[in-house]
């Protein structure tokens, strides 16, 4: 066994805990997880069955943590973990899983398959059987500070634009602010309007906030590729800045996995409770709405629907807030079938958007989103994740559909009443 393979098995062994052991003991191979996964429903190919994706983890569990498995291993009856096996599993674990968590919602015995895929990636990443695109993004995140290679000067340029457009200063590195606002590189590069939107909303509501020049990147390739050490390093940058600037809370941007990374995995990755709170931008906005600090005028025209980003909704718990805010802004709102916690993934989360070899299948499974939108005859789609937005725009183009994709935060900003 090569050193790398040995390290991979070791990494998988580290991941096994009581939930994993109960999940793997409970699976009866009923196949219902396949019916919940868009990679299966849209391709009909059984190789996309979610529970199969965790096979590397299952083998290690069986051979290291069950009496019968250890016996089988001693007798030479256990299926070994080989490089060929992991190579075959690479595309299952990465290309065709967005860790959207839908399978975890339907498993009749209650297996949280996504929880296990996240863990399986820890072994896959170490083994070297990991898509290049994801390695590249992770490398850039660690060395440059952003998976897209965005540096502070690029953000500074966007800030200047905003300041020019709105005529007020965007706070950067302000010590003692209430909120430290994080961004995703996608927002800086593709949707800079988001920066203007939060600046405008916070100015409108009188919120004390700041950006940081040292830690503005919220995304975390470490949790996508499955290397906790790297994920922890990336989270630590934010923690250090939040502590240095003495903020009360860190705001995760319109990005799905960033929220999971900071909000739910963050403290566990760095190994300590945070001295500050972590909130998604939608949670902050809904809080402001409740306090009556958001005064809007006019409503969006046309029949609009909302796409729940998996990591924010199903895996994050932010489900009501977007709907409360949409109520304020949209008169003809329509919920897609399965909307809410059972919403279907756009098909590009969990790092899939960075994997070139996954491009074809990613666009193919977009069919599911298309069907969902067509079912309600949506004329526009609102979401709260830049990655979802980019991929949905991509998908709509592929399927020749002309439907605008909006950011909830940006839409809110547009309807704010001008301050007197």
């Amino acid at each position: 066994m090569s050193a790398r393979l040995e390290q991979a098995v070791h990494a998988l062994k580290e991941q096994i805990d009581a939930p994993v052991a109960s999940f793997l003991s409970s699976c009866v191979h009923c196949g219902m997880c396949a019916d919940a996964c868009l990679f299966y429903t849209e391709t009909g190919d059984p190789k996309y069955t979610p529970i199969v994706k965790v096979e590397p983890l299952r083998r290690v569990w069986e051979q290291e943590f069950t009496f019968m498995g250890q016996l089988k291993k001693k007798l030479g009856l256990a299926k070994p973990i080989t490089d060929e096996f992991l190579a075959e599993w690479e595309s299952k674990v990465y290309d065709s899983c967005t860790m959207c968590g839908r399978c975890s919602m339907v498993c009749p015995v209650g297996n949280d398959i996504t929880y296990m895929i996240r863990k399986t990636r820890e072994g896959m990443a170490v083994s070297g059987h990991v898509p290049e695109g994801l390695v590249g993004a992770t490398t850039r995140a660690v060395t440059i500070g952003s998976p897209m290679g965005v540096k502070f000067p690029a953000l500074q340029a966007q800030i200047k634009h905003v300041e020019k457009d709105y005529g007020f200063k965007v706070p950067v590195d302000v010590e003692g602010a209430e909120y430290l606002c994080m961004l995703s590189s996608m927002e800086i590069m593709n949707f800079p309007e988001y920066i203007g939107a939060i600046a405008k909303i916070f100015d409108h509501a009188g919120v004390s906030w700041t950006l940081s020049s040292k830690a503005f990147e919220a995304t975390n390739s470490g949790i996508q590729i499955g290397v906790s050490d790297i994920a922890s390093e990336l989270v630590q940058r934010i923690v250090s800045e939040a502590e240095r600037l003495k903020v009360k809370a860190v705001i995760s941007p319109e990005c799905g996995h960033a929220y999971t990374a900071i909000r739910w995995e963050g403290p566990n990755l760095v190994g300590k409770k945070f001295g500050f709170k972590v909130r998604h931008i939608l949670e902050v906005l809904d809080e402001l709405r409740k306090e009556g600090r958001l005064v809007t005028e006019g409503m969006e025209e046309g029949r609009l629907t909302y796409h729940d980003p998996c990591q924010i909704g199903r895996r994050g718990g932010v489900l009501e807030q977007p709907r409360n805010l949409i109520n304020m802004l949209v008169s003809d709102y329509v919920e897609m079938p399965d909307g809410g916690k059972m919403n279907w993934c756009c098909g590009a989360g969990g790092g899939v958007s960075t994997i070139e070899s996954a491009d074809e299948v990613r666009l193919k499974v977009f069919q599911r989103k298309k069907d969902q939108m067509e079912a309600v005859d949506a004329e526009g789609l609102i979401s709260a994740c830049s990655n979802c937005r980019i991929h949905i725009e991509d998908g709509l183009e592929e399927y020749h559909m002309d439907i605008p994709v909006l950011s909830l935060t940006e839409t809110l900003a547009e309807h704010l009443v001008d301050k007197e």
Partner: protein
Amino acid sequence: MKKHITEAEPIGDDDTLGAALRRQGVSRRSFLKFCAATASMMALPPSMVPAIAKALERAKRPSVIWLSFQECTGCTESLTRAHTATVESLIFDSISLDYHHTLQAAAGHAAEEAREAAMRENFGKYLLVIDGSIPVGNPGYSTIAGISNLDMLLETAKGAAAIIPVGTCAAYGGIPQADPNPTGAASVADLITDKPIINVPGCPPIPVVITGVLTHFLTFGTLPELDQLGRPKAFYGQSIHDRCYRRPFYDKGQFAETFDDEGARKGWCLYKLGCKGPTSYNACATTKWNGGTSFPIESGHPCLGCSEPKFWDGGSFYKALSIPTTEVARDALYAGAAAIAVGSALGMKNRASSKQAKAEHQKVSVDDLNKED
């Protein structure tokens, strides 16, 4: 299973069964009735009745030696203390019972001489009936005239045309063989393998069954068809359960829960009270006892399964067939306690192994990801 047995040569008319019956005052009419009943019991067509009658009429009174070993005399009682004098008992009376402890007048050496004489005179032709089991562990437990049961059996069996173990003790070991079997009791079939054996088990067996077997032997000169336990299929072919008049209650799931509840009064199924009818093969439910009056289930008591091997060791008579015969609850508790100990140990091992894996964690850096193999 059928084995032909050399028919005894008739010596004279006086020695035939027909003559003996006539002497006892049995009318032709009741004799034919008996033949018809026997035919139907043995599932033979009515056309066979005259043949049976003819064969029985002409049959020589066979010499029968009856040996009693470790027994309670219940079998003899069953056969001889029939409620009324029946043709069956007369048939029984009609055989030439040359030796029977309980019934013979002779005693001591005279009795043993009678046995030896019968063996000599009818060597190869007499029927040997046995009741009681044979102590093999220590033959001293049961002796007759200083001869151990085992020796007497082996000696007497030599010249027998066929052996009929009567009662469950002789057929399968019965109560003397019950756990812990202190005498090392064995059945006839355990000890004799070179003679035709027709088991007539029951504790005691039904009288008509024994005369039926005799009738068959006298009529056809052959052994009746036997089941795998050596019992005549004609009498032991169906289970008590399958012929039980309470069967419809079983099928509907109506059970007596105690001996004096509503169900018991209504005559519901006795399964829950431990009835072994479902696994017991005997003719009780059809021929019944005491001249066709009743049988245990009819009088409200579950079947004990007395015609089956090991019936005494099959768990409580009053516990249902679905209940295990061993102390499962106690064993499960012990197993559970042991499992907690072993499970904790394995669990600790798992924990340690997991902890060690985490302790040995090698930090993964970007360089590791970009490493070429």
